[in-house]
């Protein structure tokens, strides 16, 4: 019986092979996007709940009627397809009002008209006390005048958000949020259909005191079920306003299918898509190359790893692959808006001294490191930027002239240490060999574990740097070889000790988060290796604060207390009007220069990313802040 059953099953499988063989390769004109991040199936706007990269991409592809958007360079611009006019009024009380008139004639994918109400109702929801019970992550109530009172339940309407007529609304921003260089972002709101999200009958009204939700019970219990259904639904009844419609999401296969929205009026440049269908499928690191070769998907976005990029290049050069698939591959490269780095904690142990941080930089051949790690697909930067940022592009020459590149120089590193007083042996005699020591004050010595106190009370600090690195990290492995095991480091009298731990544990040490355990509250590691990326909104205003409460809350994770750099980071965004780019750039350059001098971090590499796509796809471009969801609108299928 079992044999018979097994044979039947085997036959069924063979049968399926015969039937399904025709459907095995991708067809021309359909972009099949291999995603290495999970599609969770949460299609709620923005990051109300989750913020996975692929989820966000799908949301952007289906909703992009925003009043303000970012352009190809990452700059905030008014979207003329949606916004007829945007007027700014500086009020006497320091608040600022954006009065926005939207264009008439805009419709959702189901043909329903888009009005001003569609832009404001969700701001009321996101500013309401309901967000706690709905588990929505939102800080919108902090932006608007009257937002805090509405959030606290003291007001029944959100006074900072007003409906003026069917196509006009206004947003008034609280005074404590201004001036702000990126303040145009406060005026960036999307159109979402209230009936689809909250249910039939719900509406938004303004009786002169501000906006509020009406037409139904506005409580978490009343709207939660409908909201959840709207979040996770994909299909013909999904109401959205973007270049594509999410026609299907197969949860079992983790596959999302999008088709052109014929009612879409275009992006901020009036561009409409011409690629009829996009399918997003799950890709695995181990098999993505074979999947590309066999046509399981034909688009692989933002390849970061040097080895994978070289594999992609091999596939593109392989004529046999192209012959079998019936198409070849092209690629674009673009710079990462960030870098991998060594991060120091600058308030205890040897890394509190600038000379030590600079010496570490000079004992690491960063060009060689970047070249080895990125396998030629990366570069080195000398400050807190990536080569994809507009600030860098506008200041490249100035940065090259004014920043210290900290080129590899073992003798120079030793000289820095000697000049800084690292000239003793452990017994207080003049330095001969081994680890260097420095005479420090009791304040400088702090609770650093390796200090030595001589009989006369002199405190000597050894040049031992405790390094915390996360497990299974190839950057850590390479750093170990090129820095820890570098004979020049030992010859310079420095010792770097690697301590491997989970990423979360490392974060606890970085944040000195004693709530997770007492040991984390004690400064222990002076050096970490991490990575950082920037968004178009480059705001580091509180990253060098010296306010003890803010530091305790984990804002200044470098623990660098320098008045100049703190002031510069504040002035850069909170001291400059949004239209004063020259002043902003000048302060940004001063900040970068000061940062480069104090060196709270050592940038290790800034990747060059590669995106691989089928050669029948014409017009594809990509940049640090210009992603697939924006770029695909400009693509056509080659004849």
């Amino acid at each position, binding site marked *: 019986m*079992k*044999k018979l059953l*097994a*044979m039947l*099953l085997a036959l069924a*499988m063979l*049968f*399926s*092979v015969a*039937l*399904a063989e025709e*459907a*095995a390769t*991708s067809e021309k004109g359909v972009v099949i996007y291999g995603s290495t991040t*999970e599609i*969770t199936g*949460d299609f709620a706007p923005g*990051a109300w709940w*989750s913020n996975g990269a692929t989820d966000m991409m799908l949301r952007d592809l289906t909703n992009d009627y925003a009043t303000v958007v970012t352009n190809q360079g990452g700059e905030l611009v008014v979207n003329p397809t949606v916004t007829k006019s945007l007027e700014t009024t500086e009020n006497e009380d320091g608040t600022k009002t954006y009065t926005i008139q939207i264009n008439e004639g805009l419709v959702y994918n189901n043909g329903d008209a888009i009005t001003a109400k569609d832009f404001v109702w969700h701001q009321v929801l996101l500013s309401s006390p309901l967000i*706690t019970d709905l*588990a929505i*992550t*939102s*800080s919108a109530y*902090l932006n608007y005048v009257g937002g805090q009172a509405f959030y606290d339940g003291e007001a029944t309407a959100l006074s900072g958000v007003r409906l003026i007529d069917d196509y006009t609304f206004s947003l008034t921003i609280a005074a*404590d949020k201004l001036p702000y260089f990126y303040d145009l972002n406060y005026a960036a709101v999307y159109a979402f259909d209230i009936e689809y999200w909250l249910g039939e009958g719900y509406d938004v009204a303004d009786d002169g005191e501000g906006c509020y939700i009406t037409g139904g019970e506005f409580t978490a219990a009343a709207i939660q079920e409908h909201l959840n259904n709207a979040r*996770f639904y994909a299909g013909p009844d999904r109401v959205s306003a973007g270049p594509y419609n999410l026609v299907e999401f*197969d*949860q*079992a296969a*983790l*596959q999302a*299918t999008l088709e052109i929205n014929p009612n879409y009026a275009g992006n901020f440049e009036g561009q409409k898509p011409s690629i009829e*269908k996009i*399918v997003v*499928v*799950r*890709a*695995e690191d*181990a*098999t993505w190359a*074979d*999947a590309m*070769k066999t046509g*399981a998907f034909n688009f692989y976005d933002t390849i970061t790893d040097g080895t994978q990029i070289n594999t992609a290049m091999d596939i593109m050069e392989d004529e046999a692959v192209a012959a*079998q698939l019936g198409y070849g591959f092209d690629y674009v490269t673009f710079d990462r808006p960030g870098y991998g780095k060594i991060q120091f904690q600058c308030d205890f142990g040897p890394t509190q001294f600038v000379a030590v941080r600079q010496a570490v930089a000079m004992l690491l051949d960063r060009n060689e490191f970047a070249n080895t790690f990125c396998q030629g697909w990366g570069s080195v930067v000398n400050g807190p930027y990536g080569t994809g940022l507009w600030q860098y592009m506008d200041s490249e020459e100035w940065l090259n002239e004014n920043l210290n590149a900290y080129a590899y120089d073992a003798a120079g590193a030793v000289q820095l240490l000697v000049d800084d007083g690292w000239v003793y042996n452990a017994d207080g005699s003049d330095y001969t060999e081994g680890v260097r020591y420095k005479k420090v004050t009791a304040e400088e010595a702090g609770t650093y574990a390796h200090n030595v106190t001589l009989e006369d009370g002199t405190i000597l600090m050894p040049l031992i740097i405790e390094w915390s690195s996360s497990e299974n990290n190839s950057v850590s492995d390479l750093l170990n070889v090129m820095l820890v095991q570098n004979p020049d480091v030992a010859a310079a009298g420095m010792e770097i000790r690697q301590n491997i731990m*989970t990423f*979360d544990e490392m974060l*606890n040490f970085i944040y000195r*988060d004693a709530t*997770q355990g007492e040991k984390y509250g004690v400064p222990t590691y002076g050096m970490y290796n991490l990575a950082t990326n920037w*968004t178009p*909104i480059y*705001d580091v205003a*509180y990253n060098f604060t010296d*306010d003890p*409460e*803010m530091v305790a*809350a984990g*804002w200044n994770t470098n623990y660098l207390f320098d008045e100049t750099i703190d002031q510069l980071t504040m002035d850069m965004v909170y001291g400059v009007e949004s239209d004063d780019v020259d002043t902003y750039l000048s302060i940004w350059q001063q900040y970068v220069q000061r940062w480069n001098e104090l060196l709270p971090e050592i940038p290790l590499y800034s990747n060059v990313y590669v995106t691989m796509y089928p050669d029948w796809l014409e017009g594809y471009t990509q940049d640090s802040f210009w992603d697939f969801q924006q770029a695909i609108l400009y693509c056509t299928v080659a004849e």
Partner: protein
Amino acid sequence: MGKYVLKRIGYIVLVFLIISLLMYALYNLIPSDPARAQLEGVRQTLRPDEYETMYRQLRAQLGLDDPLIVRYLRWMGLWTDVDGTFNGLLQGNLGYSQFFKKDAVDVIVEPMKNTIFINIFSTILSLGITIPVGIYCAVRKGKKFDQSMQVVTILGYSIPIYIISLIFMFFFCVLWRIFPIMGSRTAGITYANDWEAFVDKLYHITLPVIVMTFASLGGMTRYVRSAMIEALSMDYIRTARAKGLREKVVIYSHAWRNALLPVVTSIFGWFLSIFSGSVIIENTFALNGMGRLYWQGLNNQDFELVLAIQMFYTVVSLVGNLLIDVSYGLVDPRVRVDK
């Protein structure tokens, strides 16, 4: 029998409570902060004081500031939630996935269906092959077929499944292009009916099933073979042959039935394992199954989801063990379970 089963159910409840406490405590030892993780996305948009306020609110909302035992009892449904209601495991709430931002039970449903679908094929195919081969090898012990099967099964048993997967993928997907390399559905396909969807799914899971079957052949074949060899060496087999019974009757009615007792444990284990996914197979073939979900939950530190999965498997294992013990009595009347 009834008394025995009741007693075992009592033990199951006790063991379940102990395991749940241990698992919950273990996951809470891992240094992580769900509130911090949740707010990381909006951190840059907030002033420090605003961030701190939201962070404190979120910790209170998630109940993170309460002692471990309170959080455990709340998770179990034996302590009131922050909203004053009992809403835990005992009330059917398996928890909330911080990664998927929805109830854990809603996250588990689809992967569970996929895993069961794949495992049913794999288990039946494996048993359908291994039992006859094991019996055949035992009957022809030491012959060329038996010797060659010993080599094959040792190889199958020894080679890690990810190596088998990659080798099979290379030949069947890349070189010969017989099977798709990943997923459980052809990208972009629109099905005309359910039958087409079923065939397409079958087509996609064929290679993973073949790999799983191949990898599991070694262990069970050798197990059946050794059980049969022992049974065939018994005096009653000699007696049966001396009575002039046909060899087929001797093997299947006399030897196999007696060899079944040790084998039944493994067979039950296999059927229970249809609920558990393979981390390696599902990740390699990009299949949305329980193994992959579990692995993903651990990587994302989505502990309520992981705990929900583990508690489900705990129940399956405990009930499974009871069924195995009861089944002994059914297979072999000499084994009594009524005390």
